[in-house]
């Protein structure tokens, strides 16, 4: 943290190298956060870059009242929300039959998809969970943020975080059941075709 604060101070004073180093520490996190929210690698790449550019412009306003990651997350999540608003869609409730996956079972891509629980989780998050629940679930369960950190990122009270997280976790599980996930039923028909060791 002391090293990060040192970089922040240097970057604020126009040290480009310090800025690059600062963002190198965060850009894997940032890209993953955007990918988990959007479910789209190209979009995640664009949003993460936009967030970095915006953070660079606003860096002088960063007062170290929260961690740098919290501040950066807030910028990135606001960009993501604006993007959703611009396209006026939430991007969820795509039926399982609409999922675009290779249909030929012998194709290598298909084998990769089958073995990827990753894919299933991203699909559930980005297509079956409303944005406000998706965000809180990702911050807590994929990035291990505390309730307080999440409330700082989202600028809401901790009670709201608890309520939304509780609903989000129920909803995520309900979607796994709807998708006949192997973890919840013997008669699974889910996308991983039951080969995963859950």
């Amino acid at each position: 943290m002391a090293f990060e604060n040192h970089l922040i101070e240097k970057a604020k004073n126009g040290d480009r190298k310090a800025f690059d180093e600062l963002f190198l520490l965060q850009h894997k996190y940032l890209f993953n956060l955007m990918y988990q929210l959007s479910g789209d690698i190209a979009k995640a790449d664009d949003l993460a870059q936009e967030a970095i550019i915006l953070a660079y412009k606003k860096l002088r306003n960063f007062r170290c009242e929260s961690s740098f990651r919290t501040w950066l997350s807030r910028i990135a999540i606001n960009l993501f929300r604006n993007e959703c608003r611009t396209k006026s869609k939430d991007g969820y409730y795509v039926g399982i039959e609409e999922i675009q996956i290779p249909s030929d079972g012998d194709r290598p891509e298909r084998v990769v998809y089958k073995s990827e629980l990753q894919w299933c989780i991203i699909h559930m998050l980005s297509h079956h969970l409303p944005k406000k629940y998706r965000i809180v679930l990702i911050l807590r369960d994929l990035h291990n943020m505390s309730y307080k950190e999440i409330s700082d990122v989202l600028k809401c009270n901790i009670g709201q975080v608890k309520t939304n997280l509780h609903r989000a976790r129920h909803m995520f599980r309900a979607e796994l059941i709807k998708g006949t996930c192997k973890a919840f039923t013997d008669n699974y028909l889910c996308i991983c075709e039951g080969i995963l060791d859950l």
Partner: protein
Amino acid sequence: MNCQEIQLLFSEYFDHELSGEVESAVREHFADCPSCLHEYNNFEKGIKILKKYKSLDIPRIY
């Protein structure tokens, strides 16, 4: 606390965010109520599946 009240605490119970007193009350309820315990185990299973997700490597250096 009744079953409905207990089930509203699942998420905080999982995160160990409840006070010691309330956490004990939930644990005692589970000991007497197989139905809530079953519900909780299912709830926990969903979170554990989600937590199996692993971050991707970034596609390229900016």
